[in-house]
């Protein structure tokens, strides 16, 4: 029985780490067995075969060398072939006879379409045996399972590197070092250790800063300092928790994904860790899309083969410079090629000085109007009113009677009081109340029950 268990464990390790060397095995042991290590609750791995590691490295070189964008009055050169191949190989589009349609007449799809059944969107060529999934619960009531592949997961790094290069950061770590620690701060969190073969089997740890995942809370700082990762990835909530720890580590860069990163929190993080903090717009459906660059005026696109349209509610392109829904075609997930995928996120689009398109005033989910003291204002005005405060995450809801509820984890602190008075400059004294937002809440950031709020 013992021998069989060992065989099973060996098989699982082989599947998770097909190219693992002794150095990689030692890194995994270091991450798992450090005296201050957290309780790792799950398993994962890079799952890359040897030839795929080479492919991933080649892909990184191609992404680094490629330009991003398209002519101001046209479409990218790769688009026509991509659309033709997708219409021929994806059952959903084949059934529609979509190949006969011009690009603008192709139907748009949304998260709800993928949530209903992802299978018709997976091309005939996708290898079922190697398929993996990425799952999100989201805030729109449509739990989503995204078909993906180990190579697709590994390709994320190419776009992170492109984003870092924009801020003068070139990764230098390799064998025997820890490349990245992914931070969460949730009651329940998927945690594991791994190695990145394209970076000399450097270490990767996904950890939960929530105290329950540690033998003692002080271990968090001890462990992170011992790992000394070159990159820390997280979201505004986990980074806020990170700021509370007595750390000495000096990462080269912080990657913030998933949520709006307010400028004040970014400034705090940059000052504390002495490195750039990259605010990356990334979706499970398509990976890293863009990185925020204040000098460019917004989020600069990262993927050479991703075409962005900005559409109105009826699915028509808006006038240049107007806000609308970010709609994507292309991507690097060969298990889910996207044709006019409506993200549910909003921005306007301009072309930056270097030719790369820029998403301006990106905001998640459907825009909401609030009725303020001097008439209707946009949810972006609310963001602006709060941007000087280091708030990790918040939500603003206007009730049908016009009263505004501001929720944030720090509702009972000075930060909460400051946030309320910032909103009262918009809505009037006494018009805003505070409630506590827990880290587990998956909230819609902006919402309203007021008539006329959703146009």
């Amino acid at each position, binding site marked *: 029985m013992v021998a069989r268990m060992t065989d099973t464990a060996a098989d699982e390790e082989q599947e998770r780490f097909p190219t693992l060397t002794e150095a990689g095995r030692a890194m995994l042991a270091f991450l798992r067995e450090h005296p201050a290590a957290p309780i790792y609750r799950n398993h994962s791995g890079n799952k890359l075969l040897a030839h795929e590691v080479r492919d991933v490295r080649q892909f990184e070189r191609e992404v680094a060398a490629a330009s991003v964008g398209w002519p101001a009055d046209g479409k990218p050169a790769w688009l026509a072939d991509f659309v033709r191949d997708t219409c021929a190989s994806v*059952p959903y589009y084949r059934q529609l006879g979509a190949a006969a349609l011009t690009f603008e007449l192709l139907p748009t799809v949304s998260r709800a379409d993928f949530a209903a059944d992802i*299978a018709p969107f997976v091309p005939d060529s996708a290898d079922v045996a190697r398929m*993996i999934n990425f799952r999100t619960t989201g805030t729109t009531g449509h739990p989503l399972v995204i078909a*993906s*592949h180990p190579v697709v997961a590994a390709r994320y790094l190419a776009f992170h590197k492109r984003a870092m290069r924009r801020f003068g950061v070139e990764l230098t770590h390799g064998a025997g070092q820890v490349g990245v620690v992914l931070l*969460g701060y949730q009651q329940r969190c*998927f945690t594991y250790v791994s190695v*990145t073969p394209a970076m000399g089997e450097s270490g990767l740890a996904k950890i939960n800063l929530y105290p329950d995942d540690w033998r003692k809370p002080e271990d968090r700082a001890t462990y992170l300092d011992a790992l000394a990762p070159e990159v820390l*990835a997280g979201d505004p909530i986990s980074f806020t928790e990170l700021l509370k720890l007595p750390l000495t580590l000096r990462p080269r860069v912080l990657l913030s994904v998933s949520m709006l990163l307010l400028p004040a929190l970014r400034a705090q993080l940059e000052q504390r860790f002495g490195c750039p903090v990259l605010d990356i717009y990334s979706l*499970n459906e398509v990976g890293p899309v863009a990185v925020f660059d204040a000098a460019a005026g917004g989020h600069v696109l990262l993927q050479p083969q991703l075409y962005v349209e900005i559409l109105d509610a009826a699915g028509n392109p808006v006038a240049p410079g107007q806000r609308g829904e970010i709609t994507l075609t292309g991507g690097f997930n060969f298990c889910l090629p996207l044709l006019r995928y409506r993200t549910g996120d909003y921005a306007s689009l301009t072309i930056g000085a270097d030719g790369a398109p820029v998403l301006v005033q990106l905001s998640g989910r459907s825009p909401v109007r609030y009725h303020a003291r001097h008439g209707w204002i946009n949810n972006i005005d609310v963001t602006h009113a709060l941007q000087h405060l280091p708030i990790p995450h918040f939500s603003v809801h206007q009730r049908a009677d016009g009263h505004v509820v501001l929720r944030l984890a720090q509702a009972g602190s000075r930060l909460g009081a400051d946030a309320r008075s910032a909103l009262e400059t918009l809505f009037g004294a006494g018009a805003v109340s505070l409630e506590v937002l827990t880290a587990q809440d998956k909230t819609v950031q902006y919402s309203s029950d007021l008539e006329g709020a959703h146009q």
Partner: protein
Amino acid sequence: MMEKSGPDLETLLHRLAETPAEFLAEPRVGNAGAVHVAALVNDLLALHGQRATLAALEHFTATGADVRSERNRLALVMITGWLLADAWLINAALPQHQLLHLLGAVVTELAQAGVAHQFVEDPDRREELVRVALARLDYRPAGETVAQAADRLSRISGVERKRLLEASRAAEQRAAEIRAALARKAAEESADKWSRE
């Protein structure tokens, strides 16, 4: 399929109804029959500006397997050859692989479902042959949308209905495999990304 707008349906139906006697003659099977169908196919391809390999033409010489079914198959190749000699189709510059696929696998399947000369004499079978031929060449009759053409083809053609059913079964099986693959424990574990959304 049927992405391109093609010729007028009525013109082709009329052409089939008026198939000349030479194209309704007996195909050569063993020692019987007059028409060497491989030579006829060779002439047809020449009309389309193409030259076929001997290996490709071999398919149009009767095998010794089943005289009756071979006779029927080759008779339908002759009728379909007459259809494909239409001026509109000749001007369309059809790829050779499509022509050979139509005269080969598609005609074999149609011949298994009906008597060759019925595709000339019976109005419904005439329409079936014309619609199936156009569809396999990626055309639809002039003036019809893809949806209309697909609907009319599946109404008139048992062969098409069978093809659609098989394609639908294959698609459903593939979709089930994808759903099962994504539900596996190993797929749930996912794989490394340097950031998590």
